[in-house]
Structures are given as structure tokens and as C-alpha cells.
């Protein structure tokens, strides 16, 4: 479990609103796990806590074996995050964005260059490396965003709605990129059922801040007696009285 994720009763409250309610979840090293849920289910808040962007109100989580509550600096050495918005520096070229992120992680210049070239190759960024980020299409910008998250060789990668707003072709291309990432524990959030079905080893269904069930897509369909992940998702949410 040293390179995976283990959440133990992770809770986040904003005043009276409980955004995430006692999230308990284990993601083994190397697994691609998808958190499914409608808008406001608590997926992004869960990722924010796991990536040390929001301090849990209660509970804790181990990311790569380090506590998000007591060892956030150590956790930050192990993770990469691609936020929901593309979050790139618009007036820098794609290559400069990669070098900048490498520097933010403290990589020396020569290593940063080598790493940027490697990540650009993996994500097929060659054609746009010299282009300013603000001129990139949505699909290229998402690829760049994921490349920036990978620049530090993270043990755990958080992808928050990685294909939100992309057209079918760009989404399919990005799925190929995500599938090609090996040796990294990936937690992605999505509200596209087909995305979870296409990419994830296991999925977790969230609604109203609670994790309702966890399993492989086929298991969830079996459990709910449905023939698609979307139907399984709807059945799970309705069964919990949240649909």
C-alpha cells in the first residue's frame, strides 16, 4: 500500500454543509480508480483533501504511505494533480510550462529538460511544444495539464474531470494517453459513465458526500442487476435514497 491511497473517515465540512462524509477507501498501488458522481457529489473535495489542497475536518488519508494531515509536505513530493480547469500558464509555451513545473518540484535544469522531453514524448506533445499554452485547443491543453502533473514522476496522480468539455475525438485520444500511464496509482473523478467504464480498474460511486459502493464496473452491474455502468450508477444512487 506504500504507493497507493488509503482514506480513513475523511470528512470535509463547510459550515453546515458536509461536502465529504467519512470517506473510507483503499486504492492499491498501480490501480486506476474512478470516483463517479453527479455535480456536487463531493468528488473534487475528496481530491482536494487527498492532494493537501483542503485540510480534512475529520479523518485522515495516507497517500504513498504519508499522512495528508501530518505530512503534507512529504505527500506533495509524491503526487501530481491535473485540476478540473486546465491550469496552465497561458503566455508560456507548452515546453516552458513543463520546465516550469519541473522547477516547482525542485528538479535541476538538466534533469528538468530531460524529464520534459520524456513526458512530452509519452503524451505526444511534440507538435505543440513551441506553442503558447493559451493558443492550444481544449484537447491539447488537457494533455499539457496531465503532462505537467506527471513531470515529477508522481507515485499517485489525481485527475479531476480530465475530459470535461472535450469533443469525442479529443476525449478518445486522452483516454489512450491515460491508459498508457504505467506504474502510477491514478485517482480520477468523472461524471461520464463511459469514461469510468473505459478506463477504471474499479469505480466508487459518490452522492451527497458519501461513498455508496466500490467495485469493478462488471461487479457493480452484477450487484445491481443492470447491463450498463450508467444503469448500475442510477440504481445505486436511488437505492441509497439519493436519486
Amino acid at each position, binding site marked *: 500500500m506504500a504507493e497507493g491511497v488509503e482514506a480513513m473517515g475523511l470528512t470535509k465540512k463547510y459550515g453546515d454543509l458536509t461536502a465529504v462524509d467519512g470517506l473510507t477507501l483503499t486504492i492499491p498501488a498501480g490501480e486506476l480508480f474512478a470516483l463517479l458522481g453527479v455535480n456536487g457529489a463531493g468528488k473534487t473535495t475528496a481530491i482536494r483533501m487527498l*492532494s*493537501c*489542497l*483542503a*485540510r480534512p475536518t475529520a479523518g485522515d488519508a495516507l497517500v504513498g504511505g504519508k499522512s495528508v494531515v501530518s505530512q503534507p*509536505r512529504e505527500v*506533495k*513530493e509524491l*503526487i*501530481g*494533480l*491535473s*485540476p*478540473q*480547469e*486546465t*491550469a*496552465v*500558464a*497561458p*503566455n*508560456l509555451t507548452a515546453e*516552458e510550462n513543463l520546465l*516550469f*513545473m519541473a*522547477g*516547482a*518540484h*525542485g528538479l535541476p535544469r538538466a534533469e528538468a529538460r530531460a524529464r520534459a522531453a520524456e513526458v512530452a514524448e509519452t503524451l505526444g506533445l511534440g507538435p505543440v511544444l513551441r506553442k*503558447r499554452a493559451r493558443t492550444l485547443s481544449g484537447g491539447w491543453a488537457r494533455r499539457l495539464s496531465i503532462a*505537467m*502533473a506527471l513531470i*515529477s514522476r508522481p507515485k499517485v496522480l489525481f485527475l479531476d474531470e480530465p475530459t470535461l468539455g472535450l469533443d469525442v475525438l479529443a476525449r478518445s485520444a486522452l483516454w489512450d494517453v491515460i491508459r498508457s500511464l504505467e506504474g502510477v496509482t491514478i485517482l480520477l473523478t468523472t461524471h461520464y459513465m463511459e469514461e469510468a467504464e473505459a478506463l477504471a480498474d474499479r469505480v466508487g460511486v459518490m452522492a451527497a458526500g458519501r461513498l455508496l459502493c466500490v467495485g469493478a464496473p462488471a461487479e457493480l452491474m452484477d450487484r445491481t442487476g443492470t447491463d450498463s455502468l450508467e444503469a448500475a450508477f442510477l440504481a445505486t444512487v436511488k437505492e441509497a435514497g439519493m436519486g
Partner: protein
Amino acid sequence: MRALNFSRRTAKEILRDPLNILFGLGFPLVILVLLAAIQKNVPVPLFTPESLTPGVAVFGHAFLALFAATLIARDRAGSFLARLYTTPMTGADYILGYALPLVPMALGQSLATYGAALALGLRGTANILWAILAGLPAALFFIGLGLLCGTVFTDKQVGGLCGALLTNLTAWLSGTWFDVSLAGGWFKSLSEKLPFLHAVELCRAGLRGDMAGAVPHLWWVLGYMAAAIAAAVAVFALKMRKN
């Protein structure tokens, strides 16, 4: 190391935006040329190069607040800062990274302004160097104010606050375009309690080589500079912790 990496990015983001060059450098130079032309036709003591140039230089520095505030507010809005918060960068890295590149930009503004003024009839003496140095506390005040506003307000709000309001305050209350004594009363009193008039008088004293005359103004500007930077650092750190 991480702060320098971040400051390189800050510099590129600002200098690659043509609007920044237009407002930060072009606008003050146009005003200098225009008022110098008026001075040629209708001589006014206030618009002699020795009196006018320091005021235009300080006016140019006011745009540094707009640059800093806009960049930070945009970084916050687009989740770029959130991405960076998942790296091991510290609060000091952010503050230095945003502020450091603006210092050479302030010097560049002054060099361009005094260079243009020399071409328009300013007497070339070594005191120009003192005047440029005397402008630095005001530049740092504006940079601190920009950091503060960018941390607190949205990118749309900082456009109004640091763009329209602050540059107008700097223009009206600095004694550059007219002698504040002519307005008298509360206007003069307010001008004397804010840093803009003192910043211009400090630079004018530097240009005259009048060190004794510079000292009282220097304390005013240093006080505002320290307050703005301290508030920016405190609020930025608070916002980081609040996450």
C-alpha cells in the same frame, strides 16, 4: 531556486502581454511627450522636465500593482495556484516569485522614462541615478499593493481597483499634473497623508541632489511600502493556510 523558477515564469507572463507594455511603458511615455509639447508652447514650472519626469516615472510604477494583481488573481481563478499548492513550493517562494521580476521592470520603466526625458530636454546629471533609486520604494509599495489586491480580489475587480482607481489616485494626488496646494483644504491634506505625493517629491529631491529634502518624504514612502508588503505577505500566507 524554486522562487527564481517562479519569477522567470512571472516575468514571461507579464512581458509577453502586449497590453502590459502598452500601459506600463507606452502610456507614461506618451504623457511625458505630450506634456513636454505643452511646456514648449505654454511654459509652466510644473511641466519642466525636472519637475515632470519624476511624477511620470512614479505614475508608471503604479501599473506594477495592476500587473501583479492581475496575474495573481488569474492564477487563483484558473486553478493554476491550486496546482502549484500541490508542489513543495513554500509561501516565500510564491511571494518572491511574484515580486522579484517586477523590480527590474520598475528600473526598466524608470530608465525609459528618464531616457525619454533626456531627449526632451532634461539636463543629464548623475542625480538621475539618485532619482531612479528614489523611485524604488514607491515601486515596491505598488508591487506590495498589487500582491495584496490579487490575493483578495478577482481578476475583474483588480482591473477596476488597481487599473482605474489606483492609477487615478496616483495621477491626481501626486502633484504631478497640478500643484495640490492649488486645490488646498482636504484635498491637500489627503494628498499629504497618502504616499503618492511623497513618492514624487522624493524623486524630485533625488533629481535635484537634495538629500536632506528627500528624507522626510522617504520615511512616508518607506512606511507605506512596509505596510503594503507586510499586509500582502500576511494575507497570502493566511489564504494558503485556509486551504
